[in-house]
């Protein structure tokens, strides 16, 4: 295996040419190319590549454009493709190592440009006495950053790599650096890596006034709505709308569950507005889910039916296009903007000395304890009543209650010991997964059935309708499967260990 590349940062004012001249006094070298190039970093909006220790950079010059995937921890090149332009989604890249590496990480997320750095790039070969290249150097000369040198080792010539690294450090006094200038490039834009995550991280203090804390929570959620809004309208990828909807749903749960902290007229007005937002975003999200599940649907069919279901994809795509168009119009409407702005203004208003709502002046910790304990009791009660004969509605109601509990735990997690609350959230998540699957499969089953009726009117070939019938059967079997796992997952959630943690954290009367 070849050694990993080494990186150095040249001191300010040391140009590439001066550096090469200095180095040439020590070793035999040759500049093989000099070109103006633009380095563009790419990642998904939620930093999936960065989180997986990957850096994706596209070096575009007049003669060659290369996309590199680099291991962020050691600078090793993982995959490289010569490409003219960058596609948005992993499946649009040519088959090969690059696609194989990014696909499981990016999934459905689009690859978006993060930052651009124009630079002059020098490629230098270092020779041994036989004029054999034993090391390659890439020197990038930036306008606003210190220049960088990358030492690219060649297999079998590791000694030359070490020798030149020593010359740089000990003779030329040049410092090693990390493998990427991504952080510096982002800093120029006032950004930093991982500056977006769909996970909630709200820092509350236990003695904070409840109305102040709830405003802080809503502000975080509003920010998530605003951050995802433009790309939801542009339909950049499905997850902008997903995150937008989660923030809307969390706001709705907050308005109904963090009770009596804000004035009732504000709550009722905005509860209506956010319910409307949930409703108008629903159809597009549902269709996104069907399209994202399409490959899974196809795989679930016997081999002989797989091609027959193709018209369903076209049908879903047409529906999604229309739903997306309708949604975009609504999110660009004055009505939406006016209401969201009013909500923002209200959240930014300073608080009255004494809150008017019933629980406004309580500490947030007191309120959080009460609310979480109450909703937890509801989950136990509703879950305990469910038997194999219970109607589907009972499971759906329980799913909604669990969601409320989950949001409350997430809103208030900073008020409780991190390990314990994280464990409870994890346990709840496992239980929610079964309820979610049950609901999703049921809705999908009903929708595919309804679509097949609609498609029948459009003279869809009968073999497609037959394949859809088989798909409905599959979804039904998956729904039953989820239902069969309910008792086991509920049992895990209500096990003594979790019960005692819930009691200790939220109902500790001692």
């Amino acid at each position, binding site marked *: *295996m*070849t050694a990993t590349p080494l990186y150095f940062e040249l001191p300010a004012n040391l140009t590439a040419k001066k550096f090469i001249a200095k180095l040439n006094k020590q070793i035999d070298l040759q500049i093989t190319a000099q070109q103006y190039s633009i380095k563009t970093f790419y990642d998904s909006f939620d930093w999936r590549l960065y989180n997986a220790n990957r850096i994706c950079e596209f070096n575009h010059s007049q003669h060659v454009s290369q996309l590199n995937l680099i291991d962020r921890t050691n600078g090793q090149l993982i995959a490289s493709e010569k490409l003219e332009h960058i596609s948005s989604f992993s499946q649009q890249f040519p088959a090969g190592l690059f696609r194989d590496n990014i696909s499981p990480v990016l999934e459905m997320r689009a690859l978006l440009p993060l930052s651009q750095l124009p630079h002059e790039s020098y490629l230098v*070969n270092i020779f041994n006495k*036989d*004029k*054999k*290249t034993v090391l390659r150097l890439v020197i990038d000369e930036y306008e606003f950053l210190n220049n960088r040198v990358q030492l690219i080792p*060649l*297999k*079998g*010539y590791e000694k030359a790599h070490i020798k030149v690294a020593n010359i740089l450090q000990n003779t030329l006094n040049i410092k090693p650096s990390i493998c990427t200038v991504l952080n510096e490039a982002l800093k120029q834009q006032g950004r930093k890596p991982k500056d977006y995550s769909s996970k909630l991280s709200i820092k509350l203090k236990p003695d904070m006034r409840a109305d102040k804390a709830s405003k802080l929570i809503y502000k975080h959620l509003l920010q998530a709505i605003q951050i995802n809004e433009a790309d939801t309208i542009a339909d950049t990828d499905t997850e902008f709308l997903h995150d937008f909807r989660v923030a809307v749903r969390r706001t709705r749960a907050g308005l109904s569950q963090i009770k009596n902290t804000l004035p009732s007229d504000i709550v009722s007005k905005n509860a209506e507005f956010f319910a409307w937002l949930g409703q108008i975003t629903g159809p597009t999200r549902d269709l996104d889910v069907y399209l994202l599940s399409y490959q899974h649907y196809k795989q679930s069919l016997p081999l002989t039916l797989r091609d027959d279901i193709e018209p369903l994809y076209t049908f879903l795509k047409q529906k999604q296009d229309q739903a997306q168009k309708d949604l975009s119009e609504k999110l660009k409407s004055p009505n939406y903007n006016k209401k969201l702005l009013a909500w923002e203004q209200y959240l930014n208003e300073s608080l009255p000395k004494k809150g008017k709502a019933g629980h406004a002046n309580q500490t947030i910790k007191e309120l959080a304890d009460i609310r979480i304990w109450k909703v937890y009791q509801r989950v136990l009660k509703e879950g305990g009543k469910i038997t194999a004969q219970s109607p589907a509605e009972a499971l759906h109601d329980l799913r909604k209650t669990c969601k409320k509990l989950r949001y409350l735990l997430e809103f208030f997690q900073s008020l409780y010991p991190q390990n314990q609350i994280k464990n409870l959230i994890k346990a709840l998540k496992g239980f929610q997964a079964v309820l979610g699957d049950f609901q999703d499969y049921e809705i999908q089953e009903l929708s595919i059935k309804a679509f097949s009726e609609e498609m029948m009117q459009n003279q869809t070939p009968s073999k497609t309708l037959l394949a859809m019938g088989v798909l409905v059967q599959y979804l039904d079997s998956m729904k039953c499967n989820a239902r069969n796992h309910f008792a086991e997952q509920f049992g895990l959630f209500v096990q003594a260990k979790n019960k005692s943690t819930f009691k200790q954290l939220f109902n500790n009367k001692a």
Partner: protein
Amino acid sequence: MTVIATYNIKGGVGKTSTAVNLAFLAAQNNYKTLVWDLDPQGASSYYFRVKPKVKGGSKELIAGARELDGLIKATDFENLDLLPADFSFRNLDLVLDERKKPTRRLKKLLAPLTKEYDIIFLDCPPNISLLSEAIFEASELLLSPIIPTTLSLRTLEQLKKYIKDNKLKHLQLLPFFSMADRRKKMHRDIIETLAEQHPDILQSIIPYASDIERMGWERMPLGGYMKKSRSVEAYQSLWNEILDLLK
């Protein structure tokens, strides 16, 4: 991974320049390529400016004491690596003879390189020996340059007979004309006659040309110092024929 040996019982027929130039073209086509210089003379190592030296020599290499990967050297060309020759390779036959199942030895040594390389060229020394048997066992394609002379016809027939007698069914023999001098009537006549008698001979003909001889001076594959010439085109055409067989 495809293993291609450039081989002929006779020496001086253009085996090394074939291995080096085709490997260069394969690498240019984005195939991860390795040349293993098995000839103790180390001509392909010389062409790539790599010292003909292998740590531990033939003994440790054949014993598997060192992984091949650790002995490989990058060439000056992207996607193209070299496993250099060593003077001790003159004893490869003897070293192989000491092993159990000697003819399967090379194949076994190459196995771990499957993931890393798409194509491996074995640049072989002349003669039929235990080493060549091991090379035949490890290779899928046996690329055999033949100079258009009557003697070459004999060696080609000997080679065919050997492959048949030893039931090397996995091995595809690919003879082609090398060092062909169109100015010589004898060369032209033999090419014509042989091509008729042996339809398995590839269409591409590598000319006898001074730009190929210059490789020794330039110490790099033809494509490294020359973009367009009759020889460049001839190797490109030969590579295209092989590529068609690989697809």
